[in-house]
C-alpha cells in the first residue's frame, strides 16, 4: 500500500496545471521527474511480486519452489532513448510484455543490444524472425546518454492477450550464424 500511495500522491501533484502544460520552473520540472521516478520504482516492487505470483503455476510444474524460479522483472525507464542495462549486458534474458488494453494486440518490439546476432523464442518454443537495425550515430553521440547498445533487435510480438502477458526468451548467438540473415546492410546516399 505505501508503494501505491506514493504513486497516487505523485499523480495528484502531476495534475497541477503547470505540470500538465510544462509551464513550471526548470527545477520544479526536475523535481516532478524525480518524484515520478521514485513512484515507478516503488510500484516496480509491487509489479514484480504480482508477476511472480502469476508465474507460480509454471513453477509448480517443475516441482521446484526454491528461489531459483523467482524472477526479477525489471523495467527500463530509459528505453525511450534506446538504453536498457539488462538487454545490453546479459547474453540471455527474457522480455515479458503486459498488454494494458482490453483487446488482443500485436506489437513490433525494439530491444537495445550490443551485438546484432540474437535468437528469440516465444513461450511455445517457436523461434521468431528477428532483425537487427543499427542505432543512429546521432543518438550514440549524445554525451550524457550512457549505453553500450549499438543495435536495436526488432521482432513482432503477436497475440498478446487482453490484460494479459506473454514472455519471450532472448539469447545471444555465439557464432556468426544468423548474422547475414538478421543484419540489414546500409546503403549510404
Amino acid at each position, binding site marked *: 500500500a505505501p508503494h501505491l500511495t506514493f504513486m497516487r500522491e505523485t499523480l495528484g501533484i502531476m495534475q497541477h496545471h503547470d505540470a500538465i*502544460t*510544462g*509551464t*513550471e*520552473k*526548470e*527545477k520544479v520540472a*526536475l523535481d516532478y521527474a524525480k518524484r515520478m521516478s521514485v513512484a515507478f520504482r516503488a510500484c516496480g516492487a509491487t*509489479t514484480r511480486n504480482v*508477476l511472480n505470483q502469476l508465474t507460480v503455476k509454471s513453477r509448480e510444474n517443475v516441482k521446484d519452489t526454491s528461489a*531459483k524460479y523467482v*524472477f*526479477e*522483472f*525489471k*523495467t*527500463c525507464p530509459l*528505453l*525511450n532513448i534506446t538504453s*536498457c542495462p*539488462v*538487454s545490453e549486458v*546479459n*547474453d*540471455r*534474458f*527474457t*522480455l*515479458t*510484455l*503486459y*498488454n*494494458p*488494453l482490453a483487446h488482443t*494486440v500485436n*506489437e*513490433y*518490439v525494439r530491444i537495445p543490444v550490443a551485438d546484432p546476432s540474437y535468437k528469440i*523464442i516465444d513461450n511455445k*518454443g517457436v523461434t521468431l*524472425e*528477428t*532483425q537487427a*537495425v543499427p542505432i*543512429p550515430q*546521432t*543518438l550514440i553521440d*549524445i554525451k*550524457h546518454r550512457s549505453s553500450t547498445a549499438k543495435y536495436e533487435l*526488432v521482432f*513482432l*510480438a503477436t497475440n498478446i492477450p487482453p490484460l494479459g502477458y506473454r514472455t519471450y*526468451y532472448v*539469447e545471444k548467438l555465439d557464432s556468426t550464424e544468423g548474422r547475414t540473415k*538478421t543484419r*540489414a546492410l*546500409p*546503403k*549510404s*546516399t
Partner: protein
Amino acid sequence: SSVTVIGNSHIKLGFDTNGFLSEVTADGLTRLVSQEFLFYEGAVGNNAEFLNRSSGAYIFRPNENKIHFATDQVEIEVYKGDLVHEVHQKFNDWISQVVRVYNKDSYAEFEWLVGPIPIDDGIGKEVITRFNSDIESEGIFHTDSNGREMIKRKLNHRDTWSVKINEEVAGNYYPITTKIDLEDDTARMAILTDRAQGGSSLKDGSLELMVHRRLLKDDAFGVGEALNETEFGDGLIARGKHHLFFGKSTDREGVSLKAIERLTQLEKLLPTWKFFSNMEAYTADEWQ
C-alpha cells in the same frame, strides 16, 4: 541518383536525391508528400505591453513569423530487412530522424531527435516538423480534444465570433494531444503524436507540429524564467515519434482510414509494459 523507396504492400515512401521525403503511395494513390524541419525565431518583446510580449513558456509568438529551414540537404542511410525498412536522416548537427515502415503496418513512423537547440546567435528558436501534400483542404483541418472527438478548425476563423487574426502563425495554432488531420474528396493525411504538442495547418495540404523550443526571454506570465533549460549545461535534447497515415478519404472495403487511426492511437499511447529478467542462469529449455 534516384528516388529511394521504403515500404510494404500497404504504404510506400519515396525520398528524393536531397534526402527528403518526396512522395507517398497508399491505397492505390501516389501523391507528392514532403516533410522537413524548420524553426521559428522566438519574439523578444516588451513585457510591460500586453500585446508585445516575448515568446515564452506560456505563449508561442514567433518574431514577425520568421521561419528558417533546418537544411536543404539531408544525409541518409537506408536499412531494409524482412521486418522493417528504415531511412536514417541527418538534417544538421542538432536535428536527425529515423523514418520507418514495419512490414505489416499501413502507416509510417517518424522518430525525431532534436537538440540541444543552439543559441550562440542570441536567438530563441521553436522547431517544427512540417508535412506538405497536394491535398486541397481549403483551410480546414481537425485537431483532437484529449484523444476524444476531433474538432474542426478553419484557418483565420472562429466559429462563434468574427475574428481578425493579428498573428497569422500563433493565431492559428491549436493544442494537439494525439492527432491532427486534413483531407479532400480523394485523399486524407493524419499525424498521431506521442505527447501534447502545438500544431496547425497554415497552407492547404500542410500539417505542422512543434517538437522542441528554446527561448531566452521570460514571457512575464508568471513562471519568472526563460524556457532555456540550461540546468545540465547544453540545453535539452528531445526525442519522440509521429505516425503518418495517408490514403483514400473514403471508405475502403468497409474500413475507413479513420478507424485504423483510432485503433492505432490506442495501441501507441497504451503500448505493452516491458519487463526484463536476467536469464544467465537458465537455458531456454529450463526457462520453458
